[in-house]
């Protein structure tokens, strides 16, 4: 067994699960902000019910984002101690900023938001959700700064074999950053929008009594998803330019790649400097999914006079397309991350130098243990999400007035003092 391979597998597994959840977080919170703002501005109780229903799903989904995120954070130290040793001076900074600027505040705000219904003034309660959203985007930004630095190290100089920070602004103007950030954020919006549209479509296809409510969220979700897919396509194609220029070895064989490999061979010794062939297989498939989802625009005119609901089959199309963005998310990341092999930091730090010098047995135990743990939790979480989505918006626990006895979901009497 090979410690390096096991560590890579573990990173791939944890990161994939993390991203499946945080993409939904990022997309849904944006829509929730819209819904709650509409509630506060118009005072229409339908928007309050929408906020509670989608907020409940958002909060359930959030749990696994935290659980997997914490494992991600610790993994750097546990499995990739060479990463902090050699490039921690530079790579650590955006990560530290992220935890302080983003996560710390995000969770603090979210706790107050969940428990602030019926207690805080409406404006303050809404401001908390804005805080959650802004910090969520801040976290996506800083994590992408960190990731883009691994893709294209800039703003450093190597002294005594260790990278030192020389120019922080170079990290922020990294050409590997901005198009990728736009692509990731719009992919998250697409995922959140399509999720909202698909769940609403399910209820509408079963002729829910809550027709007006799910009609609203179907429209919101579908329009968001359609706008987002165009952004995804735009930013996606825009990535080929910078990525191809910065990482000649990533996509196909070309003269620059050969020159670069000759240079690396001179500096780091002979080795296999091409990423595994399978790295790019997923990329084509993702682009295919991207074009397929572009067809969402064809459904938008059907919103006129609710043809989309009356015809019914568009509702099924939306439901069937729900897995697609999730598949594309993972494929895209695999292309980006496997495509920079064998480097952790492209052209600077090879993976085998970054992995922790620990026994393969320990690494294997960790890989199996955490994968089983997070995998089980992820499946449980999706089951709970599906059940709560199916239950409808009659009485979500989130924002339930304290005096009101819970409807059907809690058969035992509430404690008098709770």
């Amino acid at each position: 067994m090979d410690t390096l391979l096991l560590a890579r597998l573990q990173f791939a597994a944890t990161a994939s699960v993390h991203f499946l959840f945080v993409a939904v977080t990022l997309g849904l919170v944006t829509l929730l902000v819209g819904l709650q703002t509409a509630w506060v501005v118009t005072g229409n109780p339908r928007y309050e019910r929408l906020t509670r229903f989608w907020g409940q799903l958002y909060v359930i989904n959030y749990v696994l984002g935290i659980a997997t995120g914490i494992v991600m954070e610790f993994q750097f130290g546990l499995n990739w101690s060479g990463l902090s040793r050699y490039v921690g001076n530079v790579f650590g900074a955006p990560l530290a900023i992220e935890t302080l600027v983003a996560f710390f505040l995000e969770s603090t705000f979210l706790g107050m938001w969940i428990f602030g219904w019926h207690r805080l003034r409406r404006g303050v309660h809404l401001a908390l959700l804005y805080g959650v959203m802004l910090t969520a985007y801040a976290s996506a930004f800083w994590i992408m700064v960190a990731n883009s630095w691994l893709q294209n190290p800039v703003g450093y100089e190597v002294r005594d074999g260790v990278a030192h920070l020389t120019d922080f602004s170079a990290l922020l103007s990294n050409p590997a950053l901005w198009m990728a950030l736009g692509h990731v954020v719009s992919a998250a919006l697409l995922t959140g929008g399509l999720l909202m549209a698909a769940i609403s479509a399910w209820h509408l296809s079963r002729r829910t009594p809550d027709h007006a409510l799910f009609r609203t969220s179907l429209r919101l979700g579908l329009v968001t998803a359609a706008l987002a897919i165009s952004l995804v396509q735009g930013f996606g194609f825009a990535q080929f330019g910078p990525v191809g220029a910065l990482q000649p070895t990533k996509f196909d064989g070309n003269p620059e790649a050969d020159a670069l490999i000759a240079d690396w061979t001179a500096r780091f010794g002979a080795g296999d400097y091409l990423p595994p062939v399978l790295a790019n297989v997923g990329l084509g498939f993702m682009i295919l999914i991207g074009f397929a989802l572009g067809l969402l625009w064809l459904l938008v005119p059907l919103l006129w006079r609710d043809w989309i609901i009356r015809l019914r089959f568009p509702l099924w199309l939306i439901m069937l397309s729900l897995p697609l963005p999730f598949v594309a998310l993972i494929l895209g990341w695999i292309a980006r991350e496997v495509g920079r092999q064998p480097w952790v930091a492209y052209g600077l730090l090879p993976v085998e130098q970054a992995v922790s010098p620990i026994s393969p047995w320990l690494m294997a135990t960790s890989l199996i243990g955490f994968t089983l743990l997070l995998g089980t939790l992820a499946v449980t979480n999706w089951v709970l999400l599906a059940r709560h989505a199916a239950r409808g918006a009659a009485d979500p626990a989130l924002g339930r007035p304290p005096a009101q006895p819970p409807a059907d979901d809690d058969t035992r009497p509430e404690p008098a003092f709770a």
Partner: protein
Amino acid sequence: MEFAWYALLGLFFAGYLVLGGYDYGVGLLLARGTDPAYRRAALAAVGPFFLGNEVWLVAAVGILFGAFPMLEGELLAGSYPAVATALTGVILVTAGVQLRSRPDSGRARARWDRVIVVGSLLAALGWGVVLAGLLQGVPLGPDGHVAGVTHLFTPFAAATGLALVTLVAAHGATFLTLRMPAAEGDRLRPLARRLIASAIVAVTAATVVGLLSDRVRAAAQRPLVGVLLTVLLIGALLAARAALGRRRPGVAFTATAVALALPVLLVGATLWPYVLVSTIEPAASLTVTDAAASAATLRLLGWLAVPLLPALLGFQAMCWWIFRGRTDGRALVYW
């Protein structure tokens, strides 16, 4: 500059032990009795603070990575089993508390509650062993890497792990006497006092085992400070017990909070100026300065931290202020 960041790292980790500590204490207490209404009420007492408590850990590790990259890798990888245990516990508690009330059936909720109990136990045990591992020194070789992980399995590490478990249990029970409705809080007082007594026994036992251990004696740079802080810790626990006896839960909670913060100060002060003391090669020991990031990085992070810290602490304080006082019929139940 390094010292300021070291202090900040200590502040965030100690903050985590204090705040996450009562989450885990409340979690451990779910094992007691089978009354579902009581369990739900206990979680409602933690309610709005839960999400904000655990991020102190996330922030501490962020600071560890950003400001002490050299330490981050060696500390975490070098204490792999202990960190992995703690991490498993943290995840189980996070998922358990937030998801336990989502299923409908009482049976499913009871199963999740057992997950929370196990998670709380693992988290406290794991962090206890990590702290003990620092105090007893690590086999840090001249190549700068910690060799193997068997160095963790010592009587001192076990005793410290157990001591932290009893400490969080006592802290959690004290928190509940402060935060649950007065009648329920009163009912919990005898239990809290008993738990504090067992924490005193466990901390004393760990101290004795530590004093008898050659490795701990060799690693400690300032043994006197260590002993003094231990005495202070036991004093805080005695004060908490006495305050509970006089129906002063606020004072008691402050005292148990001090007791959970002190271990971090103890480890930092006893080893100073080192963070990792090598048991095999004295010259390989890592000082705080060696472990810190280079000046440019610390300066950058410093510019950020100065305006940010008041905001971070301010919003946490806002949460404590809004939800101060005992839970009552108007408190929202969500977990």
